């Protein structure tokens, strides 16, 4: 048989101990020792069922601890003082005579401590503590509910076990749903639970090499690649440049040649500012409207082909600002023609085909001709794509259908065969504008590849993919569901933008701004604290004198009858007998089980009442008799 109090205590102390384990590595040994002493004392007190320290003192102590930790909190050291204060508060709670709310507080502080440990470091052990605490607290609270209904409840071993087992279902259902929430919630920048996030990036389809024939699923991917906060612009302009690919091995395009941009970026007209919220995708490239000139808010390199590469891979949602010049042709005075004319071994059929197409057209004419040619003779398709060694030839001569990668590859190869430098650009084309929140949302299905060819000191954009692709996308966008999704994305966007903002540092900056203005206040507080400390002895003495004089004054300001009666009640309370307001004195004494105590109490009550209810004044002698009896109680 277990008393419910014992069970609840067991769970409370267990949860406190686990919370303690989760943080003990980080906190100051002094706090560690204090907590440990409080913990042991708490167990001792519970065992003896005595709680000698009045709650008032514990409360004052707790307030002092909190104040102390407030003084220690600074921007560089925010979590640790809080955790240390919490561990002391937890210890104090353990030595209190615990009631329902105290147990709840113990559980809550334990959870806070565990959360604090997650802020101090990222360690897989956290998961273990988390699970343990989850089980202990959810079971503990169920037992606590029983306790709150009947404090003297006694449960048999079988009952205890049965309640325990049934309670286990709570975490079993709750934890998977919690994990689910973790996955679907937007990720924060701060490394909280970050280890759960990384696997996310693999889902996203953008790739920095374009292989013919095996990327078709990208175009089906409805997940959001990034959001762009900017003014609404002409849809023609919506080419988001990602990565430039210059090397073709017959099957796939790669990025081989990298040179940091040396030309000075000249800001002129047609500069558009975009703030981009990029979802994690595991690569380093930053996207921006064609063509990007400068990125702010992210440590990145800009290459001479206007590809932006972040120093760190994007494994969590980031925010950056990008400045782009809206222009289909990029000035570039010096290029290494050999790089952009590189070709693998191609069959004669392809070469001949390419040369025939060119004929004696000028380069711009030929570019236009290519677009028209593809438009007329080829179909856009995302299914049944050619693949393998001869995918390009298959596309050109047999299937005559493919996705943007085939069109771009083919166009680039044809250009290069005709001695025109060309390269493939991978990025995103098109986006949906959210009129409510004024931003573009770019889905992974918007991923696109196009071609740039070099002519007369400029790189010109050439998009050979038939316009049919757009109409396929459009059709999907018209569906009501899609519109609804776009609408709902607004909430997502605001959440990301305002609540998390992906920039903990920025929030710290705001905090700093406020704290700076509060600095003077803090300084004066320090001054007060210093004065207080210097005159501590005087203040404490004064406090005690004031405290006791108030007590004495209050003691003598109430009549003797009331005083002696209160004293009697207090004495009885020590034995666990508390008189109700509606209970007569004799009625109250009738309930006493202890014989000797009952006799003494009756003696007191009889004498007292014979004066009290006869409206007689107590003489000195009577007072003495009553006090003597009280002393014996």
């Amino acid at each position, binding site marked *: 048989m277990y008393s419910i109090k014992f069970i609840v205590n067991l769970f409370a102390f267990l949860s406190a101990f686990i919370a303690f384990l989760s943080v003990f590595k980080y906190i100051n040994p002094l706090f560690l020792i204090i907590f440990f002493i409080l913990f042991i004392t708490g167990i001792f007190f519970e065992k003896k069922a005595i709680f000698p320290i009045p709650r008032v003192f514990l409360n004052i102590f707790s307030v002092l601890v909190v104040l102390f930790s407030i003084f220690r909190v600074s921007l560089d050291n925010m979590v640790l003082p809080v955790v240390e204060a919490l561990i002391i508060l937890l210890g104090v709670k353990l030595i209190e005579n615990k009631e329902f709310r105290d147990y709840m507080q113990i559980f809550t502080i334990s959870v806070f401590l565990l959360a604090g440990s997650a802020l101090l470091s990222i360690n897989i052990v956290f998961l273990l503590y988390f699970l343990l605490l989850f089980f202990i607290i959810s079971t503990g609270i169920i037992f606590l509910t029983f306790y709150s209904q009947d404090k003297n409840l006694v449960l048999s071993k079988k009952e205890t076990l049965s309640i325990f087992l049934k309670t286990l279902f709570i975490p079993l259902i709750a934890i998977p749903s919690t994990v689910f929430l973790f996955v679907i919630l937007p990720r924060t920048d701060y490394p909280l639970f970050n280890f759960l996030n990384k696997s996310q990036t693999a889902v996203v389809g953008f790739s920095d090499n374009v292989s013919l024939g095996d990327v078709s699923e990208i175009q089906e991917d409805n997940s959001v690649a990034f959001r762009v906060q900017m003014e609404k612009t002409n849809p023609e302009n919506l080419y988001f440049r990602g990565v430039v690919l210059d090397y073709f091995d017959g099957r796939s395009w790669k990025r081989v040649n990298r040179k940091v941009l040396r030309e000075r970026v000249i800001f002129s007209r047609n500069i558009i500012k975009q703030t981009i919220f990029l979802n994690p995708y595991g690569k380093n490239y930053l996207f921006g409207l064609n063509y990007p000139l400068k990125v702010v808010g992210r440590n990145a390199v800009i290459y001479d082909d206007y590809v932006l590469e972040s120093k760190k891979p994007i494994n969590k949602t980031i925010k950056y600002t990008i400045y782009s010049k809206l222009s289909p042709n990029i000035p570039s005075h010096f290029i290494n023609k050999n790089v952009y004319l590189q070709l693998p071994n191609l069959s004669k059929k392809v070469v001949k085909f390419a040369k025939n197409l060119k004929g004696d057209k000028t380069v711009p004419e030929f570019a236009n001709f290519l677009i028209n040619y593809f438009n007329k003779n080829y179909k856009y398709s995302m299914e049944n794509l050619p693949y393998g060694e001869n995918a390009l030839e298959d596309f050109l001569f047999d299937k005559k259908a493919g996705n943007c990668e085939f069109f771009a590859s083919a166009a680039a190869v044809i250009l290069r065969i005709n001695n025109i430098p060309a390269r493939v650009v991978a990025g995103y084309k098109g986006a949906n504008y959210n009129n409510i929140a004024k931003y573009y949302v770019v889905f992974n299905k918007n991923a696109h590849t196009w071609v740039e060819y070099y002519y007369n000191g400029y790189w010109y954009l050439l998009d050979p993919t038939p316009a049919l692709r757009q109409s396929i996308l459009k059709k999907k966008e018209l569906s009501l569901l899609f519109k609804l999704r776009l609408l709902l994305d607004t909430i997502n966007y605001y959440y990301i933008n305002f609540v998390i903002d992906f920039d903990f540092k920025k929030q710290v900056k705001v905090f700093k701004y406020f704290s700076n203005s509060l600095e003077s206040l803090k300084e004066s507080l320090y001054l007060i604290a210093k004065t207080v400390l210097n005159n501590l002895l005087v203040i404490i003495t004064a406090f005690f004198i004031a405290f006791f004089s108030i007590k004495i004054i209050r003691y003598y300001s109430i009549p003797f009858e009331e005083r002696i009666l209160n004293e009697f009640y207090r004495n009885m309370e020590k034995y666990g007998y508390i008189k109700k307001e*509606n209970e*007569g004195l004799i009625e109250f004494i009738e309930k006493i089980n202890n014989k000797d105590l009952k006799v003494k109490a009756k003696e007191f009550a009889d004498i*007292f*009442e014979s004066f*009290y*209810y*006869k409206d007689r004044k107590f003489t000195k002698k009577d007072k003495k008799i009553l006090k003597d009896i009280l002393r014996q109680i």
Partner: protein
Amino acid sequence: MVENKKIKQVIDTLSNYLHGKERAITLSLITFFSKGHLLIEDLPGLGKTTLALGIAKTLGLSFSRIQFTSDLLPSDIIGVSIYKKEKEEFEFQKGPIFHNIVLVDEINRATPKTQSALLEAMGEKQVSVEGKTFKLPKPFFVIATQNPVEQFGTFPLPESQLDRFMMKISVGYPSRQAEKEILKGGSKREEIYNIKPIFSKEEVLQLQEEIPKKVYLSEKIIDYILDIVELTRRTKFLHVGLSIRGTLAIARASRTNAFFKGRDYVIPEDIKELAPYLITHRVIFKEEYETSDRQEIIKSLIEEVKVPA
């Protein structure tokens, strides 16, 4: 527990005839010594007559019993003037009410006219017949009974009349053990007639006068009583609270209770103990609480009142 020796003796004696009914006996005696009248609401055959007779005998008083019926006339209880040939004048023949202790059986069976004749006599302690006033004997104590179950053909007493009874109690079934004793010993009704009085009539009268003088009612207790009265007047359970007569009854009965317990001052417990019997029949419950246990409601009301100490 009753501490007064002689009273205790009375209770002990009566307990021989009414096993396990000390409470009912004590309450009856408290009412008697507070100069009140008693209403017993109970099923027949639970020892009401024994109780009334026992009290009369132990206190050395005269006793009569009137069975109320629907054709009972006021003159049947008060008495009639009869023409005496010898004296050539009307002579008043005293009715059964001219006794110290009168047991009125099934008070609600008589017509309101007869009922009010009785109640008037109870209140005034005298009767007027044809211009002449006849004092009722002292002490005068009416124990009226009514059957709570049989309601057909009865004239239930209105609340205003019920107020004239100091207490309403019920004797109730005896415990199994007590009933066993009764079966073993047989009916002791005959023996009751042979009880030796413990009090004399004079002693009883003296005691009745003495109690209010001897027992001190503190101002704190008066406030406590008034708190209770006030609560009955404003609680959501009751339509009509206690009357002034009710308040007086509480004070008188609590004094007697204190006296019985050997105290010369009243404590809150004296009142708490009697309150359900003193209050329940004097107040009118709201309709929605009519059917619930009225005594429990009154008890819970008393528990709401804070005691002085």
